[in-house]
């Protein structure tokens, strides 16, 4: 089976000359479909930069990246927008919900521009928020807001879900709940889930763990057995 993503010598440099920062150095890898992949590493290790590039939010300085057989590095701005619109879901540390829209409306924001979306209520039910459909972000806890963000990301039935520090702003109980939801999405919808995190314990729930240091991929670990998110301690 064709992998979800493939990269070749992917590099990203900010600035020029002596002041240049090498955020990503020649990363070559493959990410199979329908896996939960955790990207680990300290701050500045390049994991977020890597996620941004394959998520279509940023462009590499050199190297290539493919989504299936589509070369992301050769896409126009318009094509990248279309890629994000059709194939990719994002979950961020600070939720990024529209405060002026209710939970259901935040999800509908995406379903209105998607081809074959699931019903907003269905997406919110998947994250356990069927009781909070008509609540505004201001009326919800952080964990609930993050679950709305996940519902919004999965409602368009994306092939891939990108999660940048999804539990970073949450306490451990709420964080475990969010990870559980991500795990369910992967299991029930077959969505490839990429999670960038500081929290090493999260690695236990992954099919595959990618360790980043100084902009380089240092190690790839394939877990023989995966832990249930409910058992993760951090």
């Amino acid at each position, binding site marked *: 089976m064709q992998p979800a993503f493939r990269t070749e010598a992917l590099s990203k440099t900010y600035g020029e000359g002596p002041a240049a920062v090498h955020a990503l150095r020649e990363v070559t890898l493959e990410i199979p479909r329908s896996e939960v992949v955790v990207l680990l590493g300290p701050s500045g290790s390049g994991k977020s930069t890597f996620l*941004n590039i394959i998520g279509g*939010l*940023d462009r590499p300085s050199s190297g290539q990246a493919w989504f299936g057989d589509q070369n992301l590095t050769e896409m126009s*701005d*318009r094509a990248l*927008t*279309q890629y*994000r*619109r*059709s194939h*990719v879901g*994002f979950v*961020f*540390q*600070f*939720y*990024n*919900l*529209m*405060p*002026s*829209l*209710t939970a259901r*409306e*935040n999800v*509908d*924001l*995406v379903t*209105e*521009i998607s081809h074959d979306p699931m019903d907003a209520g269905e997406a919110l039910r998947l994250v356990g928020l069927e009781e909070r459909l*008509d609540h*505004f*972000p*201001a*009326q919800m806890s952080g964990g609930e*807001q993050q679950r709305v963000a996940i519902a*919004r990301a999965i409602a368009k039935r994306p092939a891939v879900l990108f999660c*940048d520090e999804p539990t970073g702003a949450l306490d451990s109980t709420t964080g475990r709940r969010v990870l559980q939801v991500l795990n369910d999405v992967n299991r029930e919808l077959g969505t490839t889930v990429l999670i960038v995190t500081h929290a090493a314990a999260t690695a236990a729930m992954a099919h595959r763990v990618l360790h980043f240091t100084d902009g380089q991929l240092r190690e790839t670990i394939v877990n023989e057995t995966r832990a249930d998110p409910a058992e993760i301690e951090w």
Partner: protein
Amino acid sequence: MALTVLHRKLFRDLWRIRAQALAISAVVALGVMVQVMMAGLTDTLTVTRDAYFERHRLAQVFEPLTRAPSSMMEQVNAVPGVLAAEGRISGFGRIDADGGEPVQARILSLPGPAGLNGILMTAGRKPIAGRSDEVVLLDTFAAARGIALGDTLGVTVEGRHQKLQVVGFARAPEFLFMPAPGEFFPTDGRFAVIWMERKAAAAVLDLDGAFNEVLALTTRERPRKAVLADLDRLMAPYGGGAGYVQDQQTSARFIEEELKGLRQSRVFLPPIFLAVAAFLLNVTITRIVQAERREIGLMKAFGHSGAEIAGHYLEMALMIAFAGALLGSALGVMLGRSITGLYMEFYKFPYLVFSMHPGPFAGGLAFSLLAAALGAAIALRTVFRLTPAEAMRPPAPPDFTHGRVGFLATVTKVFDQPGRMILRQITRQPVRSLGTVAGVAAGLALNMAMLMIYSGFDHTMDVTFGFADRSDATVSFIHPVSRDVTHEIAHLPGVLEAEPTRYVPVLFRNGVITHRGELTGLSEDAQLNRALRPDLEPIALPAQGVVISRGLADVLKLQPGENLTAEVTEGRKRTLSLPVAAISDTLLGAPAYMRLDSLTRAVGEADRITSVSIRTEGAPSPELLHELRERPKVAGVSIKSDSLAAFREIADEGAGQMRFVFGAIAFVLSFGIVYNAARNAFAERAHELASLRVLGFTRGEVTLILAGEITVLVACALPVGIWFGWTLAKLIARVFSNELYRVSVSFDLPSIAMAVLVVVSATLASILMLRRALDRLNMISALKARD
């Protein structure tokens, strides 16, 4: 003094928001500019007028009479309150330019030893004593007619042809604004004054050893009106008794009316701009304080007091206002000078005493700083309330629960998610949204009202010269002539129709209110000169009574059915009591129409007329003008198309410049408001917009969401602005209308369209600038930021 760190932050912050700061400064500048400009204009006009009147000793009391012996001047000088007096010789003649139409000219004796109604020589010299053929000519007439020093004028006075040599050109305060007799607007080539040696003037006007007008300056101790009453009594046996004071003199009165209008607009215009500026600063500072919560928390944690930090943001607002006030002062002086120049030209002031008191600058500066401080102060209350710990935590998401119930909930259901976001954003901060709507509406209204006033002027011209006065030319006579002359003129070459008119100078009176004017007698079946109803249909003149114009009705506070008293100031000086039959919608002047036969009967004269209106085949031909020149009783011929064209030229120049100025003002105001609103919305919601981009919304779609909010607000502002503009136009029309000229406004679609276009283009310009900012929006950094 070393710059504190806070000051450095201040300058960097100002640089960061420079586009917004500039837009707000521009609005402040407009307010101060209008203030300074209007102040400069009114001060300069007032001071110049006063200086001109005083230097040339313009009489404070005028007493025209038929004829009095020179010895009477002794008694005039003995009247209590008379400081200086002079008996001058005044009459009319006719200048016969070769081939052109005859022009009626005022003939005056040169100022005597007391120097009253002095003249300002602009070229050449005064006549040499004893040279009765040398004259001084009004310079504006000479320039318009291409008459040079040394030229000879053919002048007919009292039926006698004279050859007079022009040896000098002059101007006089008495003739700043003087329409030719029987005309409404002053046109240089249509109004002439000839000054002659006293003896020469007396000779041509048959006034040897006599005078026919008293000019007097009065002492401060005695009111002018009291002096006038004494003179009226003294001169009654000599055909006097209908004198007037300086305020009622045409030239002086017109300038005073104009100044009155300018003073009023000076009061109500600037506050609009300053209120808008205060609002913009309030919204912007609120937004900056919100965005800098963390910094504020930090500064508080480091030990800065709430007042110190509030002072920092207050300084920002004050600097923006200060820059605007400086710019506005400079622009105001520049524009004031240029517009003052236009006025000078229009009123024929020979010199300009440019006057600029420090008051308007200081006032403009003080008021703009006050407006800024007020706008900022309301925003800065939050700074005092924030505790450091609270400030350093991200704020809770803004609460939109207001949109869940009631009317709004029903309405929002109709829209898609972006539509709902727009609607809820607008309704969540109703005060801010209303302020934006009000500000944009104010800009629109101001521009629209001014455009309406200018097109109202065109309307006045169209109604007056298309419906009320449909003649092509008017032939006027020096003294009343037999009505039969009408038939004679009707048979001249090229004349299609001829109608008689009789003007009788009167003093209108209603109780204590008086007004100098004239009764206009028209033939029963008049077609060329008509009184009109508001729907432009002619009013049939009643056999008894008078139809008065709206202007006169307003001045005298008269209603149909009431009685108008008219004291005739010539001939037998009868006092008439005339029932007001109807009020006509006359826009120029303040006429009172009567049937010719009843008017002549009332004044106790045979059927005599003072002018004949004619309609001609094409323009009046040289043959026709030649025939008229051959008739010594003809005082002058005014050709409507000529005088109209000449006046339009002057008016269009002024109106053109003012249209441009107000268009620019409306654009800057609308742009300032719209751009600020859009910029603030963008700054507050940058990461929302970035999220949308990440979710797969295109740049166009995101621009639409951001532009949607401002577009909805502008769309709301349009009808409000149109309504407000219409109200404002009517108000301005009322303020500027007087008995000389009524400003008429109609719901003029081109004016509305133009004003709307300015607002829409200002909106588009700000959306385009925003689009550039959106294109530079960095999705990743926006998303990493906290809510």
